[in-house]
């Protein structure tokens, strides 16, 4: 091989992303005529997600399968997808990413040393808790909700009248069980695989955050490729993304079935309007601090 690459992925074997990243490695070798090989390190064994992002930017790793959430603090454009309720649903998110909006985000990331090659599905995150179904923002009022480390997520809970509680992921199960926090939020597969459904049995389909994932490559490595190689690498990534989205849909269905059989009460939220309305201050504060991003936010909101 002319080049031996190394890639990072946080998920364990059998997870849609893991299978798809292995497929990417296989396609990469095939499409580049054996010029490039990729050695995948699954299960986050080479570090946490923010660390791996840094490793790809520094050139210690060539490839990573990253969620855009932790890329937000590095590339401001990527943080836009962390605005609550910015996407109507998953298909809307993909329409944005595959259009002009995706272009803007990709350029912002490339300027920070990360070139996204293709977009993966990570579903939608919804609220869950142990007390009651959530139907209106008032149901969140007074609730201690675990959030990931991002000012937008804590701002979201605060505006809904809840008490945002950042907490290490590993502590959440016990915290839910004992009531240190009342609820948390995540997608179907994580809600199921972490066992959180055992201790927080009300899952309300708020779908407040739809944050995509991507296959990223180190910018210097990418820019050093010939046009032909660039095309081959991108093609391999896009084909692996097609597989990932298929596997993801199946995995979501399995997880949903598992937690429903486990006795979880699932509810649709009939009117998400009040939730979206409550987010106005979050958007205002965010855009006041990042005025350059207003066109991107507008662009996403007008994308059909």
């Amino acid at each position, binding site marked *: 091989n002319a080049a031996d690459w190394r890639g990072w992925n946080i*998920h*364990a*074997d*059998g*997870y849609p992303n893991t299978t798809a990243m292995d497929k990417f490695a296989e396609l990469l070798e095939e499409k580049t005529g054996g010029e490039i090989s990729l050695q995948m*390190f*699954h*299960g*986050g*064994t*080479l*570090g*946490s997600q923010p*660390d791996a992002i*840094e*490793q790809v930017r*520094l*050139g*210690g790793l060539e490839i990573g399968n990253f969620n855009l959430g932790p890329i937000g603090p590095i590339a401001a454009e990527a943080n836009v997808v962390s605005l609550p309720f910015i996407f109507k649903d998953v298909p809307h998110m993909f329409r944005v990413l595959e259009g002009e909006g995706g272009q803007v985000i990709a350029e912002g990331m490339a300027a920070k040393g990360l070139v996204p090659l293709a977009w993966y599905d990570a579903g939608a995150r919804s609220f869950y808790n142990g007390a009651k179904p959530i139907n209106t923002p008032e149901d969140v009022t007074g609730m201690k909700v675990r959030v990931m480390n991002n000012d937008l997520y804590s701002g979201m809970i605060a505006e809904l009248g809840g008490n945002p509680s950042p*907490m*290490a992921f*590993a*502590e959440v*199960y*016990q*915290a839910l*069980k*004992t*009531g*240190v926090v009342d609820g948390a939020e995540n997608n179907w*597969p994580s809600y*199921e*695989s*972490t*066992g959180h459904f*055992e*201790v927080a049995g009300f899952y309300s389909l708020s779908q407040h955050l739809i944050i995509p994932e991507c296959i990223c490559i180190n910018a210097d490595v990418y820019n050093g490729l010939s046009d032909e190689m660039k095309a081959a690498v991108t093609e391999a990534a896009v084909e692996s993304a097609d597989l990932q989205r298929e596997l993801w849909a199946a995995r979501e269905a399995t*997880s949903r079935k598992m937690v429903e059989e486990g006795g979880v009460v699932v509810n649709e939220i009939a009117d998400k309007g009040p939730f979206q309305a409550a987010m106005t201050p979050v958007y205002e504060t965010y855009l006041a601090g990042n005025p350059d991003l207003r066109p991107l936010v507008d662009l996403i909101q007008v994308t059909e």
Partner: protein
Amino acid sequence: MGLFVLLGFFALCVIIGVPVAFALGISAMAAFWFEGLPLMIGVQRIISGINVFSLMAIPFFIFAGELMFHGGIAARLVRFASAAVGAVRGGLGIVNVFSSMLFGGISGSAVADISALGSILIPVMKEKGYDADYAVNVTVTSSIAGIIIPPSHNMIIFAIAAGGGISISKLFLAGVLPGLLMCSCLAIAAYLVAVKRGYSAEVFPGWTALGLSFIGAIPGLFTAVIIVGGVLSGIFTVTESGAFGAIYAFIVTLLVYRTLTWENFRTAVLQSVRTTAMVMILIACAGAFAYMLTFYRVPDKTATLLTTLTDNPILILLMINIVLLILGMIMDMAALILICTPIFLPVAISLGIDPLQFGMILMVNLGLGLCTPPVGSCLFVGCAVGKLPMETAVRTIWPFYLAILAALIMITFVPAVSLTLPGLLG
């Protein structure tokens, strides 16, 4: 070749007497350099080794332990304990084991257990005429009960590494009996060694003295109530309970016992940061070392080797145990759970082993690894707390290793030990 640089440098550093933490860091950096990796990533790994929120409990438990020790709580606790069971040979050894069972069960962290109980019990055991190596050995080996007895952060890491499908509550239930079994084996070992060494049993001081020592110990015992009760009732997370343990110990020694002088407080703080820094720098540098082991695919290659050797289930299980023990000796627990689970769990399931039981086998193995040189954080902390050179402690630790191994063999070959409770209550 790169792996040779990593391990060779490490061995060389250890032999010439470089502190083990720095030996890990230096050899990892040599391997980073050898592979042409950016050295900044080596620095990142060292930082990330301790940029972990769950580790935050460590300084708190160390601090609470130091305050309890320098402020006089520990002395009263031990006065009571030795009044109660001092009349048994090796009484304090057995007290040590069972307090780990309770305390470690709550904290879920072996290192925190040693920091807290070790700082109290080791000095007292020495004072009562127990040899330092015995005190350290009992403390170190019994601390791994905390990993097995629920709740346990490491169990959650295991469930996540297994990629879902394992119920965490069942996993917690599965840990109860193996934990009790391990503690019983250790208590027997503690008793037998005490008899062998001829530690004199103390004279039973009578019921009145026992009662008085109990009353004197109540405010101190309440520290445990704060920590246990706080976590079980859901007022605190484990980390917060550590901080409150320290705050409570401060208040009790200052206002109730009135034994905390400024000088004692200062000593407690300085001793705590000294121990904390030693533990943390080791975990930090082990992070960089583990990265390079993963880079060289050491765990993967080990697993491949294993399955090409034999297809006899009992032999494979035995070999998995041996491999885990060896890896546990040279790597950190959390990293190993994440690396080994995806490799060994499918092998185990294909042999018809329940994932819950496999989880217990993994925990006990890696837990034992925490008590072994050259990379054993529990052993390091225990030796640091007991102010004992590691090789002195290791020379006499084997009866306790045997006790854990006995428990491990039963857990490995008798599925009911792990599966009975989850089956009944799950």
